[in-house]
């Protein structure tokens, strides 16, 4: 085929020279090749034998084309979209119209399919508006990237990027926990000994700094940069960005770790008493308080995909929680020792855990299956996953960054490494930046990790460059789009599924939720009659006339339960049993 096309082209050129001069269009060539491609067998067969014939054919064909081309759109129809991009925006499977479907059903399916296809295409088309690529670090030949020091990187890159590597020497109140705001502009650090500061870390503009004069267990930004929560020795406090104490939430005591669920406006806290609590920061209400009965909870992570909270326990298990269920959704045995740290992938596919058994394990949390595990000699005290899937692990005083951990290929050597002084207490990647923040005993270190951050941000969701006004607008919109805590579950798409529970089950749930049976029949209430026929005795008589109906229902219900009770008893006497039965019947009367 490849041999044919140039031949065809040359012949056309010859023809052109002879014939009148038509202005050559750049699309004619492609058209011609298309023509030739359309029937390659024919051309191949004829090409060798009789060129003249083919040229004649081409001539006629060309003339036709020439005539039609002047009027025709050179690129008819829509611009094609690459299959890969289309696949990226595929949502679920297409529904096929069943064979014997009615007209209405056919139409409904056709409309919905057309609409979803349109949406998919448009999204794929607009994908080219995300032009940024992630960075990376590449060593020379025979040079491991993990030997490259931060200082070298800072020197090599441009000034602004270089300035992202810095140290804050805060040896007095360490070790430090840290948290980046969702936009990645602001950094919140909290020292164990009470030092709390929030910084616009890119401009190094200190917004507030204070000492709460108490142990600080954890710090967390709330939905905006205007508020943050500090888990102090006893209570949970909420401060504004200027360090003014807004709330002291006394319902939340002994909090050790916190997670903020941004789309639900929920602050989840794990306490030393084993309670997992949810605070709705938009209305200031405690949504749920769950007693996990698992002891001290000092390992916590959230799944950004479905807002499920992961807790690590001293017995080596990791449990998954939602505010809607008093028991854990899933409990998985991950380590033989206590779980030291947890991190969940942005897509909610992978979970990385590290335990006291000095193992690092990667789980697929859709299937709850371990993908691979590796042994770290020092063990990882802190774990963090970046937006692009880089894993950082604090092993002793060294922070190691691993690449391509989330997948089937096993963990090999680290991508980067950085040694610090003092114990590492907190690790967090800065969103939309190639920066890893490390809180340690000697203060805070901002480390450059090329390729860590997501290069394209959704300006309507988290815009690092948003103005004050935009932030306000975003806040209102986010509040309007707040997801209710009832919708948290393992499957975030649960809402779009039909509830197939039976009527009885739903009725039972309804009774549980309401505290009474909405469909219950009212008890018989005799009508009041006149002329002395509504005396107490008369009423009682009338009641007795219908009493057997209620009794029948009650009996049929109680019989089952009664026998269930009886069957559980190991031994009993006949008399006793009959006596008890009588008692029950009496009660029912």
């Amino acid at each position, binding site marked *: 085929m490849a041999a044919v096309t140039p031949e065809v082209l040359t012949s056309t050129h010859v023809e052109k020279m002879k014939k009148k001069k038509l202005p050559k269009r750049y699309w004619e060539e492609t058209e011609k090749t298309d023509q030739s491609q359309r029937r390659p067998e024919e051309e191949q067969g004829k090409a060798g034998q009789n060129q003249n014939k083919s040229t004649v054919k081409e001539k006629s064909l060309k003339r036709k084309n020439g005539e039609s081309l002047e009027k025709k759109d050179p690129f008819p129809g829509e611009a094609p979209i690459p299959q890969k991009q289309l696949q990226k925006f595929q949502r*679920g499977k297409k529904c096929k119209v069943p064979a014997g479907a009615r007209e209405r059903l056919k139409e409904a399916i056709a409309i919905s399919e057309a609409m*979803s296809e349109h949406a998919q295409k448009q999204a794929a088309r607009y994908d080219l508006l995300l032009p940024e690529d992630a960075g990376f670090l590449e060593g020379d030949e025979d040079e491991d990237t993990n030997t490259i020091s931060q200082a070298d990187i800072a020197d090599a890159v441009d000034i602004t990027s270089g300035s992202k590597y810095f140290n804050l020497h805060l040896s007095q109140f360490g070790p430090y926990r840290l948290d980046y705001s969702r936009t990645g502009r602001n950094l919140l650090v909290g020292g164990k000994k009470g030092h709390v500061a929030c910084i616009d870390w890119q401009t190094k503009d200190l917004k507030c700094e204070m000492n709460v004069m108490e142990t600080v267990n954890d710090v967390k930004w709330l939905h905006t940069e205007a508020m943050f929560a500090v888990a102090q020795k006893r209570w949970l406090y909420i401060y504004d960005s200027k360090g003014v104490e807004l709330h002291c939430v006394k319902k939340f005591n002994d909090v050790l770790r916190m997670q903020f669920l941004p789309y639900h406006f929920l602050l989840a806290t794990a306490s030393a008493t084993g309670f997992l609590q949810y605070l709705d920061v938009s209305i200031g209400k405690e949504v749920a308080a769950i007693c996990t009965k698992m002891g001290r909870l000092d390992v916590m992570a959230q799944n950004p995909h479905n807002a499920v909270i992961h807790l690590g326990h001293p017995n080596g298990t990791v449990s998954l929680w939602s505010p809607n269920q008093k028991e854990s959704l899933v409990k998985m045995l991950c380590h033989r020792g206590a779980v030291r740290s947890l991190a969940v992938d942005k897509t909610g596919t992978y979970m990385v855990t590290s335990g006291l058994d000095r193992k690092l394990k990667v789980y697929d949390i859709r299937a709850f299956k371990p993908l691979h595990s590796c042994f770290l000699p020092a063990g990882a005290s802190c774990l963090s996953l970046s937006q692009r899937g880089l894993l950082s692990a604090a092993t002793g005083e060294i922070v190691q960054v691993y690449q391509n951990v989330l997948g089937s290929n096993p963990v090999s050597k680290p991508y980067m490494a950085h*040694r610090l002084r003092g114990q590492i207490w907190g690790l967090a990647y800065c969103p939309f930046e190639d920066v890893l923040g490390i809180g340690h005993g000697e203060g805070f270190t901002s480390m450059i990790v090329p390729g860590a951050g997501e290069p394209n941000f959704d300006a309507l969701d988290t815009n690092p460059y948003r103005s004050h006004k935009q932030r306000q607008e975003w806040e209102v919109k986010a509040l309007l789009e707040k997801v209710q805590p009832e919708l948290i579950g393992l499957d975030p798409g649960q809402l779009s*599924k*039909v509830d197939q529970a039976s009527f009885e089950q739903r009725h039972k749930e309804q009774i549980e939720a309401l505290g009474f049976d909405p469909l219950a029949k009212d008890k018989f209430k005799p009508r009041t009659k006149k002329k002395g026929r509504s005396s107490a005795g008369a009423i009682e008589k009338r009641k007795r006339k219908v009493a057997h109906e209620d009794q029948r229902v009650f009996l049929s219900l109680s019989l089952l339960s009664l026998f269930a009770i009886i*069957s559980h008893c190991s031994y009993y006497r006949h008399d006793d049993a009959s006596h008890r039965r009588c008692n029950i019947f009496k009660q029912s009367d």
Partner: protein
Amino acid sequence: MQNENLVQISFFNQLMLVHPRKKQNERSEASVQVSEYFVNAEGTGDKVNLSDLLGTVEKTSGASNKTKKQLRNLQSSKETLELPLNKQQTEKIQRGIAYEKTTAEVSCWKNIILQNQKAEQMVFPLNQESSGPKRVEQVVAGWKVQTPLEQEIFRLLHGSRQPVNDPVLTPVEEQSLKAMSLEEAKIRRAELQKARALQSYYEAKAKREKKIKSKKYHKVQNKAKRKDFLKQFDEMVKTNPEGALEELKKMELSRMEERMSLKHQNSGKWAKSKAIMAKYDDSARKAMQEQLQMNKDLTQKMVVPSDDEHESIEEGLETVPDFVNDPETVIDPVNPWMRGQLTHEEPEVSCVTAEEVQTAEEENEEEEIIGEFERKRKLRQADEEDLIPTEEERKKTQEEDEDEEEDVSEFNTLFRLMRSEKTREGSNQTRGGLNTAGEEDEEGLLSEGQIRVRSIEDLEVLDEVVEPRAIEEPSAPQTAAAEATSEPPHKKKREINLKEVLTKEAKAVRLPFLPTVVDEEERDEQISIIKEAFAGDDVISDFIKDKSRQEAAGRPAVVDLTLPGWGEWGGVGLKPPRWKRKRFRIKTAPPPPRQDQKLPDVIISEKRTASVASHQVSQLPFPFQNTAQFESSIRTPIGSTWNTQTVVKNMTKPKVVTKLGAIIEPMVKEDFIKSKTTAAGGKGAAIMLGENRRAKEGTKRTKILALTELPTA
């Protein structure tokens, strides 16, 4: 009325039906007065037989042979006629026919209704006319002249060849009109709005000012206006000569008017009284003077400052102004007759105080616009009045003036008496004028701000001032550069410190960095160590226990309905027999397999999350046959978080769009028929329509009140 009559007639008929036997028998006896209402005929109740008619038919020549033959045949035939169908049956047949008719009539709506039901979006009103005002001829199109008055008017219009029915605008123009974009329209609207608002402000202001009774205020105002006008006029001469000419004309006119009238001539009652008081009262004198001045100003002849003249004037200014040599002006600047050419003088300039200047400046902008309005008004008035006096008139007025001179002679004597004082004042004024001029000069200097370079020395001085800046400016980048250069060293210094720490340790650490994956032997060792460490708490067995407990809880319990002691001996330690257990222990169906059945180290809760259920769809919506179909139909989110703007708009567009305030007329048959024919093109009509009733009945329309409801017959 007709209806009433109909009702009456029907009522009468009914009466007749009720009493068929009772016939009104007319009197047949002879009377003097014969009623015209009752024709008395003999044999009224008798039946007419066919044979009676036949006889006459035979006789009449006009009847055709065929009918005659038929009649004869009829007469001869002995067969009895068939009985007509009974009432019920005829009615049934009629109903059937009526039903068919109506179904045919109504079924033509079926397609359009289905189509509308299926439509993704309906826009009402259906046949939308273009918004915006209609042109007269569009409105008038269906209207015809009826009354004689209208006819008269039309005839007149036709006579003058005014456009009546013909479209004033060509289709192209119409299109261009329509094509005025929204933005343009908006801008235009905003402009109009602003203009209107401004006008209202000015009107309000003018009203307010008009109410002010202070004469002084008005005087000042007028002066300011005049001054302003002069200024404008000067500008106008340069920029808009035509406009200036017009203005000149106007001024000429006002001069004429002034000369015609006795205003400002100090000849009125007021002036005379003032003249008496002038001896003693300084202010009275002043007022009179001002009056005269006004007159003088107004009656001054405007000299058009042509370019040549302008130049010559400028030349003159260079040497010595003419009026300096003129003694009269110095002596009496007030006396109009003593003056020569005074067009270039602006005596008011000196008189205007600082306050006035301020107020004038404040009101400049507003007055400009007011002035424009007023000018236009004046122009209009002038046009309307058409009061341009001719040459003769002017001469007359001059003569009259001369006549009046005698009358004013008294005043003149007074005037001469005052002259000495005036000269003093005049000198004062001129001095004041000079002063103000000097001040202005000073102000000019002040306002200049920057030093103007005049000589080389100045330049040198300037250099001294400027150079340091020039030196400074390049120094800034230098320093910046120095900082930039100094910063990296500084930075490096800092980082070197770190580096020293880092590199030293990094080298030491480099080896421990790498062996993350440990050899198997080591691993075994580690495992054994861990085993030792966690020997006390057996994590795994605990977990397995927990899991089995959960599984047990999930399994449904066996219902045991055995009644111990029933039909047998009861007592301690007795077990129900096997047959009883077999028969009365009911095993429920096993639950579906647990999700974590094949995952030994995972416990997945089997509890149903009831919280989501309240938000879920619990019943399958209509057209869908199974849940998979429905779920796939809602699998694409419609929010803007997941979709592009256009898609969101498309997905969430409303089913019905109505225009605010527009009347939604019921659908008319013609609408969809027309649309169908235009849409279908050459295709034949798919549905048979009944006869076009509308054509017959004129204005009567068949309507459908609601689209889904079929009109019943």
